């Protein structure tokens, strides 16, 4: 028997047994759809995190006070020990290091802000104008021009905060109080929404020297550095570490991390997660395979007489095996196609329902789903097909 004829004959058989075809197709389609939808969820989570990190700024190198116990962790910040201060002078010394495009010292703290009789607890950032460029923040109205100091007592308000304190929209030029200090509003940030669980619309930014005075500290929380390019990140990191270690009398009591390293760690974790989820979804394909095997075994016993007849007409065992394998191949292919349709539209509706989550199926999902469906189909029909090919023709023919 020629391959082309076997393909055609098995297709003819498949469409003749509608209920059987529908059952197998459905099982396969659901398995494939599960792979596509679940991997797009995993991929969506990965993209979500990557986007969140990108919104922090590009080519970011961050200096933290304190020594990292293990590389890649968040030292100091978690342990709480601050052996030696990271000072404004430390920050200023970075200006001349190769690969540093700009840097911004950063202090962060909670404080109360009051204006026009309204009082609120806010997160206050103290930094320089560079931070706005490094973090990719946008000022909707006004300006922020602070340098390392001394600076005038200017303040920029988050969009929501400005709205709350000055509902009339006339925030620029107004006076606000932070503790017992008075600041003049010189700018309002553009509304940005959440980023890393931190609502930039509810913060305020003042010059770093004023923040240090307000919080009564000499120590910086972070120094943010923007490297000149992606390839400059690692050399810059090393140079910054060396320079600061030198300044601290040869003791490496600071930690320099790159956003890139954190990001790629998350990227790896979430990609692994996506594969794991795909594996779990593939289990549903294995279940589909068991169903296919059962349905095909029933088909073989229902068509015993037909198999006997084909043998009497001169079909070899190989011919019979091929016919049954091709039947499931057809059904697996059709099931995979239907499953892709269901899966991709499922992912589409997921994106509609949760616009924040970019649930696009990864490029390998479709291929993996089809390959798994085909392999499942072949493996599942192997036993029934072999059983059919081994049937004794005399017994098969005598069965009604």
């Amino acid at each position, binding site marked *: 028997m020629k391959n082309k*004829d076997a393909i055609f004959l098995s297709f003819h058989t498949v469409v003749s*047994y509608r209920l059987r075809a529908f059952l197998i197709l459905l099982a396969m389609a659901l398995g494939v759809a599960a792979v596509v939808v679940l991997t797009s969820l995993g991929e969506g989570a990965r993209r979500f995190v990557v986007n969140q990190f990108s919104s922090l700024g590009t080519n970011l190198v961050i200096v933290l006070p304190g020594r990292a116990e293990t590389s890649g962790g968040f030292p100091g910040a978690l342990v709480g020990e601050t052996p030696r201060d990271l000072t404004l002078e430390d920050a200023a010394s970075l200006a001349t290091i190769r690969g540093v495009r700009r840097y911004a010292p950063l202090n962060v703290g909670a404080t109360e802000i009051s204006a026009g009789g309204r009082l609120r607890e806010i997160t206050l950032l103290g930094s320089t104008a560079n931070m706005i460029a490094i973090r990719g923040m946008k000022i909707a109205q006004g300006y922020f021009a602070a340098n390392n100091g001394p600076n005038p007592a200017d303040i920029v308000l988050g969009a929501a905060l400005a709205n709350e304190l000055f509902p009339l929209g006339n925030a620029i030029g107004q006076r606000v109080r932070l503790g017992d200090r008075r600041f003049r509003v010189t700018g309002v940030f553009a509304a940005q929404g959440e980023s890393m669980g931190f609502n930039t619309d509810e913060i305020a930014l003042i010059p770093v020297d004023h923040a240090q005075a307000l919080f009564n500290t000499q120590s910086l929380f972070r120094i943010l550095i923007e490297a000149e390019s992606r390839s400059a990140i690692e050399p810059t990191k090393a140079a910054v570490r060396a320079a600061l270690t030198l300044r601290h009398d040869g003791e490496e009591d600071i930690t320099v991390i790159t956003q890139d390293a954190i990001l790629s760690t998350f990227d790896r974790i979430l990609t692994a997660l996506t594969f794991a989820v795909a594996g779990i979804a593939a289990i549903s394909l294995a279940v589909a395979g068991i169903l296919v095997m059962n349905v095909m075994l029933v088909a073989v016993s229902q068509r015993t007489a037909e198999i006997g*007849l084909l043998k009497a007409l001169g079909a070899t065992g190989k011919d019979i095996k091929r016919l049954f394998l091709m039947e499931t191949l057809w059904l697996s292919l059709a099931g995979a196609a239907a499953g892709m349709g269901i899966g991709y539209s499922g992912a589409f509706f997921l994106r509609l329902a949760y616009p924040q989550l970019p649930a696009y199926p990864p490029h390998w999902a479709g291929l993996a789903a089809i390959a798994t469906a085909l392999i499942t189909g072949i493996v599942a029909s192997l036993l029934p097909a072999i059983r059919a090919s081994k049937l004794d023709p005399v017994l098969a023919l005598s069965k009604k």
Partner: protein
Amino acid sequence: MISLSNISRFFTMGDQEVRALNHINLDIPGGEYLSVMGPSGSGKSTLLNIIGLLDRPTSGTYLLENHNVTALSEAEQAKVRREHIGFIFQSFHLVPRLTAAENIELPLILEGVPPAERKARVATVLEETDLMDRATHRPAELSGGQRQRVAIARATILKPAVLLADEPTGNLDHKTGAEVVALLEKLHHGGTTVIVVTHDRELGNRAHRKIQMRDGEIVTDEK
């Protein structure tokens, strides 16, 4: 052309042995018209299955056109079956989802004949068996006689040298049975060796050579 020497076929059922064929010796020259009769269980179908290579003898030698076919592999036997032997059964054994023409086409597909040639040959055979107007009907839409004619057309489309019929009229009434017999005899006149197993004395006596079986043995063999 068919030569069976010392052919036996034993079945073991539990601890007892059924001797379906017991040391059979039989020579059938090409072009013969032969009937096999005998009581139920005498081994007629088993004999036919051995001749048709559907079953392997427990012992003995079977020469088909001077070739020892008992020693062939499964795939080689299938090829011999396809090219040299046609089967006709009491219960027709048509594939229910295929039309008459598609059923007849099956051996050509198995043989790997190209589609255009297949169509032409099926059309010719449909004409010979007077089934042209039934070509696109499924078996369920055909009468018993028509079904058996489709089965005969299918069995003979590759022009086999031997046609084996196991009670071909067993499920037919007298009139349609006679039509089927006429078709078989037409094939015999065309040079095909025809072997018919039957319970029908009248049909059996039409054959030129008549064999009687009992308990797996040939008891009479008359011309």
